[in-house]
């Protein structure tokens, strides 16, 4: 005699893999889209950084020749203007015709020449730099101008330097692993939890509430297969499908993050995903598997209580809030939880363990407790589902 759960499991998978459109939209598209979008954002940001090396037009009043020379090396095209033209050129900055308008006091060079450490701060001359924050070119030129002026000021009154020696010295002692770990531990648990939730919620309501709505669930319930087996078959099949969708999204994110970060910091090679080994990946897969099982069970319960897919979609909204809240709450949390009970709290336990995995501080007991707790909660959920499937008011009410 064949096992009822296995028959239902095979049927659900046949439905999933047989529907090319469903397969593409729930497995291939999420990962591919995430990869393309993140990569596109990264390369757009990179282009923006590269654009910042373009030339800038600036108007200057009383600018010392030494500063002008430094700015010209940084692709600034300086137009010397008189003080009474200041307003006219400020207007040009506003209309985005030029990037900056810099005004030095008349006696700037003589004051600088006579400067010493006893000069009162009230007598220090002020340099005004007018810029337009709504113009990308002006926004890029402004920090360059400030940096240049600051360096000129430092040269005049240099008492000490910080991290100025560059030959063969790296002041950041963090390894590539540390940098990647910190960043991934902050970003990926939130992303993965959100993607897993999305993957589960895209499939479970259709399979349970959808079957109720279409009347096809009754054809299963009038067979001699126990309802607990029908549920087990459905939950396991849904978990496999959601896992595929979740893994696809995770891969898309994981592979595109270096491109995204490269675009953000303008440096290549500081973030590398190949720092993770088999141990990290195994832990991650085990965590994701147990979490998908739990999420599918909870969403299945909600879908069973709903009369239609639409109603199920509305009813699962609070769960999404919980998933998001738990993920974001732990995003900036630096302390690693060591107490046992933290790893018994559903969803929170997974996020915490994922953070540990990504930051190379895996504690096997915590992962074991998390998986055991998730499986236990899922078992309890399947028991509740069986009760609900036996409740005619819920199934046919």
């Amino acid at each position, binding site marked *: 005699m064949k096992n009822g759960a296995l028959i239902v499991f095979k049927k659900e998978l*046949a*439905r999933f893999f047989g*529907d090319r459109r469903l397969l593409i939209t729930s497995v291939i598209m999420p990962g591919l889209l995430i990869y393309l979008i993140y990569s596109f954002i990264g390369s757009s940001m990179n282009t923006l950084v590269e654009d910042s090396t373009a030339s800038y037009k600036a108007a200057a009043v009383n600018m010392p020749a030494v500063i002008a020379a430094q700015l010209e090396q940084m692709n600034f095209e300086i137009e010397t203007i008189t003080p009474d033209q200041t307003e006219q050129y400020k207007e040009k900055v506003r209309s985005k015709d030029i990037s900056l308008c810099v005004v030095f006091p008349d006696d700037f060079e003589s004051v600088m020449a006579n400067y010493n450490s006893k000069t009162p701060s009230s007598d220090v001359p002020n340099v005004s730099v007018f810029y337009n924050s709504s113009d990308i070119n002006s926004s890029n030129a402004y920090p360059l101008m400030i940096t240049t002026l600051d360096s000129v000021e430092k040269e005049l009154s240099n008492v000490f330097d910080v991290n100025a020696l560059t030959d063969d010295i790296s002041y950041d002692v963090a390894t590539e692993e540390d940098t990647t770990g910190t960043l991934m531990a902050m970003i990926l648990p939130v992303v993965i939890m959100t993607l897993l939730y999305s993957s589960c919620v895209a499939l479970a309501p259709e399979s349970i509430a959808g079957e109720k709505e279409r009347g*096809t669930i009754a*054809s299963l319930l009038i*067979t001699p297969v*126990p309802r607990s087996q029908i549920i087990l078959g459905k939950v396991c099949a849904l978990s496999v499908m959601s896992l595929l969708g979740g893994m696809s999204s995770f891969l898309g994110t994981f592979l595109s993050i270096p491109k995204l970060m490269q675009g953000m910091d303008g440096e290549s090679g500081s973030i590398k995903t190949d720092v993770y080994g088999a141990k990290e990946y195994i832990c991650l897969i085990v965590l994701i598997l147990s979490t998908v099982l739990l999420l599918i069970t909870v969403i299945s319960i909600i879908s069973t209580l709903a009369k239609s897919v639409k109603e199920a979609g509305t009813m699962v909204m609070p769960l999404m809030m919980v998933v998001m809240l738990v993920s974001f709450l732990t995003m900036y949390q630096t302390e690693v939880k060591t107490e046992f009970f933290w790893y018994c709290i559903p969803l929170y336990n997974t996020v915490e363990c994922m953070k540990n995995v990504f930051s190379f501080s895996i504690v096997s007991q915590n992962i074991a407790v998390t998986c055991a707790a998730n499986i236990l909660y899922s078992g309890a959920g399947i028991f509740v589902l069986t009760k609900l499937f036996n409740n005619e008011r819920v199934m*046919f009410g």
Partner: protein
Amino acid sequence: MKEILKVDSVTKTFRLTSKQQRQRKLDQKVLTAVDNLSFTAYEGEIFGLLGPNGAGKTTTLRMLSTLIKPDSGDALINGLSIVKQPAEVRRNIGFLTSDVKLEDFFTPDYLFDFFSDMHSVPDDVRKERKETLFKRFGIDKFSQVKVADLSTGMKQKTSLVVSLAHDPDIIIFDEPTNGLDVITAKVVTDFLGELRQSGKTVIISTHIFSLIEKVCDRVGIIIDGKMIKCSSLDEITAEKSLEDVFFELYRERKGDEI
């Protein structure tokens, strides 16, 4: 004659929500759908439950198919209790109703195999049975076409065939010809006769007098969840037509409210 189905004082009530109370214009919170209903069906006969909409026919059949449980009373199918042995009962019955639909995505071939597996039908038996039934109903030409792409008649035939995948002793049909074209309706009614000839017991519910007159051996008339008359078709129609008998009973119970 061997007693195959014995329904004994079955009652089923439904709790109404405020919305349902308003929609049905009822004051009471509980609706009695089936009220102390009893009847018997024998081997090799077609028993018809006749009644207007809302009389409790579908609720009765749903209880017999173990989809819902009676509040009180019981029914024995092949000696098995619908209350205490629902899983065993399901092995003995085939249930077809407009409420039970097939998944549009699959083909008749896949669905027959799937439901055969759910009923633990051995592979060789399944293969032979599928071939016979598909040929009988002309499904063989469409066996690899998704249910979604079949005509309404072909869908109904597929549902019928799938409900017989495990060769049940008792076949329960709720409104078997509802919504069917004349040709498919004839195929179905002819098949009901064939089932009787092969010794199966068929329970149907309908409000179509001609269907009852054409295929049933015995009839139970239900009004407001109560069995008003239960006898052989010959006895009921000895003096008057079935339609006249039904409306006479209906007026006795409900006055001139037609």
